[in-house]
């Protein structure tokens, strides 16, 4: 079935690209091999074919040739179909090669490969007179970014933001084991410090919200038609995620004793370091909030001791007692 279908779809593309006039379904049926005699079966098949062509991004136009036509026809505008002329310099071709390898996920890795193929086909790279993508011939810029999308929610959320559709999903908040049902108008997907987030208008909470993709539980479902989500003009999705996930400013000061030759993770940020006798240094350092910094200091075990402030000292002692509890 597949080969005949491919042949039929290809014939339709060639036919409709070659005509300036709109061709009716009947005219297409007469010109193309493979459609059935039976009228209903033909109509069903033709509808599926049109949908498939449009899904591939083929700009199938519908219209009437003149006022007396009763049935609309179809054509493909060559200008809308064809990839415009594009030529790359050698350094641009090298960068393109890197960009095409960035995505590690099925969804967009395939799309990047498809784009590369079209650009090669257009002669932008790899044709006579155009630079190649062969590693041997290129100066290697030596940069290899990678994007992984292990979260199954990425694919449907990308489609939702692309097509501006609302979605619904179940969500497990941070440090929670219970799941809540959410309905979201997604404004954008952000990768921040290696993690994927989606931000938008949460219809359930009637407020702007950020969700981490790895905490979405189960499938993401489209809950409305395409183009039904409006992204506010002033929405800055990157800022939303950043504010949601950024540590507080370091505006407290701690005084610590740090064992000589240890506690490098603290020393890196030290404001002052003075020897304190017996193989210890006295260090002052800025920190943001007590609970987080107490966790951090506890991780150094017997290499770091808190002198002050008292609440930080108590918090570290309580962590350490917790380990022994």
């Amino acid at each position, binding site marked *: 079935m*597949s*080969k005949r279908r*491919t042949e039929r*779809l290809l014939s339709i593309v*060639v036919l409709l*690209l070659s005509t300036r006039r709109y061709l009716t379904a009947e005219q297409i049926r*007469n010109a*193309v091999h493979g459609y059935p005699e039976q009228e209903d079966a033909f109509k069903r098949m033709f509808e599926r074919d049109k949908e*498939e062509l449009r899904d*591939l991004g083929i700009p199938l136009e519908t219209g009437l040739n003149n006022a007396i036509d009763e049935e609309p026809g179809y054509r493909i505008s060559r200008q809308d179909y*064809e*990839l415009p002329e*594009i030529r790359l310099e050698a350094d*641009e071709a090298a*960068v393109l090669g*890197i*960009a095409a390898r960035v*995505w*590690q996920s099925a969804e*967009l*890795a*395939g*799309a*990047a490969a498809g784009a590369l*193929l*079209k650009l*090669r*086909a*257009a*002669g932008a790279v790899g044709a006579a007179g155009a630079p190649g993508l062969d590693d041997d011939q290129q100066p290697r*810029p*030596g*940069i*290899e*970014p*990678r994007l*992984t999308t292990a979260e199954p929610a990425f694919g449907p959320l*990308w489609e939702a933001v*692309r097509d501006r559709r609302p979605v619904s999903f179940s969500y497990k908040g941070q*440090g*929670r*084991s219970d799941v809540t049902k959410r309905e979201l108008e997604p404004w*954008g*997907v*952000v990768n921040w*410090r*290696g*993690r994927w987030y989606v931000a938008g208008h949460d219809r359930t909470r009637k407020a702007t919200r950020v969700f981490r993709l*790895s905490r979405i539980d189960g499938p993401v479902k489209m809950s409305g038609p395409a183009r039904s989500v409006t992204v506010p003009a002033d929405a800055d999705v990157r800022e939303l995620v950043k504010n949601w996930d950024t540590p507080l400013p370091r505006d407290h000061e701690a005084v610590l004793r740090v064992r000589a030759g240890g506690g*490098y993770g603290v020393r*890196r940020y030290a404001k002052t370091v003075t020897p304190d006798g017996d193989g210890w240094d006295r260090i002052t350092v800025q920190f943001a909030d007590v609970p987080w910094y107490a*966790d951090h200091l506890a991780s150094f*075990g*017997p*290499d770091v001791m808190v002198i002050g402030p008292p609440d930080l000292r108590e918090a570290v*002692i309580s*962590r350490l*007692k*917790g*380990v022994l509890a």
Partner: protein
Amino acid sequence: MSGSTRPVTSAERLTRLLALVPYVVTRKVVGLADTAAAFGVTERELVDDLNLVWCVELKAPEPYCPIDLSYEGGEIVVSQAESIARPLRLAADEASALLVALRMLAEVPGDGSAVARLIAKIEAAAGAVAAASTQVTIQIDPPNGREVAAQVRAALADGRRIHLRHYVWGRDEATERDVDPMRLLVVEGRTYLEGWCRRAEGVRLFRLDRVLDLTVLDVAAEVPASAEHVDVEQGLFRPSASDERVELELSVPARWVAEKYPCESVTEIGDGRLRVVLLTPDTRKVRRLALRLGEDARVTAPAALAEAVRADAAAALSLYD
């Protein structure tokens, strides 16, 4: 595409055919083997594609074959391509996949002029569908790594050796070494120098936001021919046969551990608590992790590690007596 057992759909094949014809046309004549490699298909599959294109026949108004081609002697020539001599425009997914990746590249410090020019060209070629790409943003921003990243890029470009002082979190140590740079990697939002470490005599990754000091030396880098790139395709945390297994019980405030660290298994054990089995190349990391989690986590195996964590905590507490 290749390597997958899933049959190719007619849509995927049509996309390939619509690229294949212009691919040959722009090159005038091209070998079967090269073309098959470029499209990720076997030569046999390619010949099937060519036959299919060649067989296309329109019945009306007069029967004719719009596309004429040959592949005699292993050389493909398309003598008549009619309306499909140019490739189809980029689809929204295709344009976005490239543009999002390029904007991520543009964030890496250093000379980005080729990236900027390429972004402009792809945006122009893609037209309206390029707009969807702005819905996805990538932020790679180790603020204290930016200057270091620019230095590493310069060293890579000039083929020079690097001297660096680097913080090893798991061991809480600063180490010094000479490194011959191989690549700058950006993985999971962080930037790494991959290089041949002359101290360890092996390929190592160094997280740039943990570089304490970096000097580009006036010495040519010498990466041995035997040095192999680290395989980062599946992410950085890849279990290795030499990893140790550590079993932890986590209460609700420590559940994030299961998201952040590679776990062999994660089991709900009631009241929101989890039992996880972590794989780690260095149990000192887990020791530090357990200390910071306090009462929210318990190492349950191996027993020696559980004991070491308790000993660390007791020694630390004795400082306050």
